[in-house]
């Protein structure tokens, strides 16, 4: 029987009385690679913040690894890269090494640190202060942080916005490798539907509520989606990752 890593039931969330998420019910199974897409303000990041307990939902329930969110304690199982890296305080005195280990109960594991710094190609920056780095290097340091604890669930909110194409491609290949060979469950939020088509197994399209949930193939062949986006737009989205609609 498939294990649900995340399950939400009738999730609703409001910012100052305005509904941002409406009746969101979905599940992510162990080993899945879920892509989350949607227009700006569609609630993608808010959904993730609800799931991680950063923002409390107004209604509905969330469970992580089979436990209600309120009882969940195994946070080391989750690696999260937030979207909002631009707010990073450039005077923050943490070194890259300190940032990678950031978090509760994260005992120093030199081998792990070395490994994730190598993965992100920032081993030479380990003693530099995070504020002294370029935006792209900061992004890589934050990705290394998300990967450090060898998480079972990796949640990436717009992870490659500041990366050069080479690093971006390498990063997505790494997520694919983690997903396929180590069974890491991945949730990827991005506007890049080409990336979602190439790497994600399932797609969740949000616009305050779930517009579509299923495989990318289903998305590309769905008459409902053709109706929602218009056939031309659906074709463009699906064409971006070399998949043709029927």
């Amino acid at each position, binding site marked *: 029987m498939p294990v649900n890593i995340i399950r939400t039931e009738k999730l609703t969330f409001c910012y*100052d009385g305005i509904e941002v998420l409406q009746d969101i019910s979905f599940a992510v199974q162990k080993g899945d690679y879920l892509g989350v897409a949607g227009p700006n303000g569609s609630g993608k990041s808010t959904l993730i*913040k609800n799931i*991680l*307990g*950063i923002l409390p939902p107004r209604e509905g329930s969330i469970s992580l690894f089979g436990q209600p969110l309120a009882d*969940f*304690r195994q*946070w080391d199982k*989750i690696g*999260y890269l*937030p979207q*909002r890296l631009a*707010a*990073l*305080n450039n*005077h*923050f*005195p*943490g*070194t890259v090494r*300190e*940032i990678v280990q*950031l*978090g*509760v*109960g*994260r005992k120093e594991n030199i081998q792990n640190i070395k490994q994730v710094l190598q993965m992100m190609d920032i081993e030479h920056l380990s003693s530099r*202060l995070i504020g*002294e780095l370029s935006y792209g290097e900061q992004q890589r340091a934050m990705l290394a942080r998300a990967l450090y604890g060898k998480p079972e669930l990796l949640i990436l909110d717009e992870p490659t916005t500041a990366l050069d194409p080479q690093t971006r491609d390498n990063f997505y290949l790494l997520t694919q490798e983690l997903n396929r060979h180590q069974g890491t469950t991945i949730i990827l939020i991005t506007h890049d539907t080409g990336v979602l088509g190439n790497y994600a197994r399932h797609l969740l399209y949000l616009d305050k509520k779930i517009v579509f949930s299923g495989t990318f193939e289903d998305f590309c062949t769905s008459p409902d989606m053709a109706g929602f986006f218009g056939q031309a737009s659906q074709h463009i989205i699906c064409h971006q990752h070399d998949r043709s609609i029927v």
Partner: protein
Amino acid sequence: MSLGEILSFAFVQRAMLAGVLIAAVCSILGVFLVLRRMSLIGDGLAHITFGSVAVVLFIGISPLYITLAALPLVMISSLAILKLTRSKKIHGDAAIGIVSSIGIAVGIVLASLSGGYNVDLFSYLFGNILTVNQTELLLSFILFIIVICYVIYFYHDLFAVTFDEELARSMGIKTKRINILLFILTAVAAVLAMKVTGIMLVSALLILPPLTSLQLSISFRMTIIVSVIFAILSVICGIIVSFLLNLPAGGTIVIINVIFLLIIFGISRCKNNLGK
């Protein structure tokens, strides 16, 4: 008078010890506050302390217990600031402004009702470290131990919350608990620091040593340690210089802190320019 003679006085030793303990506490807590852009909380709490001292003097509690009596009021006010800063409609600086205005207003009104500004209230405004009593020394020591334990036990949580509070929450860190403790400890430190620098300059102890340390661009752990070193040095030098030159200790300690900041800032700028 020689340095040895100055240090042989019991009240100077008590002042030195209390000053070192309080400065260390403020410089540790200050690192977290400065990095979270909450530096002005020291100023706000100092104003609240002024109001609280006025309340205590108005009620007629013995000056010996003023520090103890003012503590609960300042602690409650610090939590009010925390609560207000969490409000979506009020920004953090405005929240501090609201609470500190209330503190000052209450202080002025009560001082007026009790027959004008009396000497006791003025002594708290400008501080007099040499009048630190046994109770205050004991409180300073207890606070120092609590803050050290708090920082050691919650180091990873504090680091994460200081870096990014939302990210910390996503790791399951109970950020509310960390914030409440940080604000309460800062409130206690602010009350005790009023004897060292006076209410007017409490925030200097919370801001200047961390800021000096931050100029060195060193790791987070070292920033805290170096901040404590600067704070302790400023208190020791400040008390000695004030004694030798017959200057007010509080102001002298703050001026020495500023001198440290300017020196380190200058060195850091030169280093950066040479590096380019």
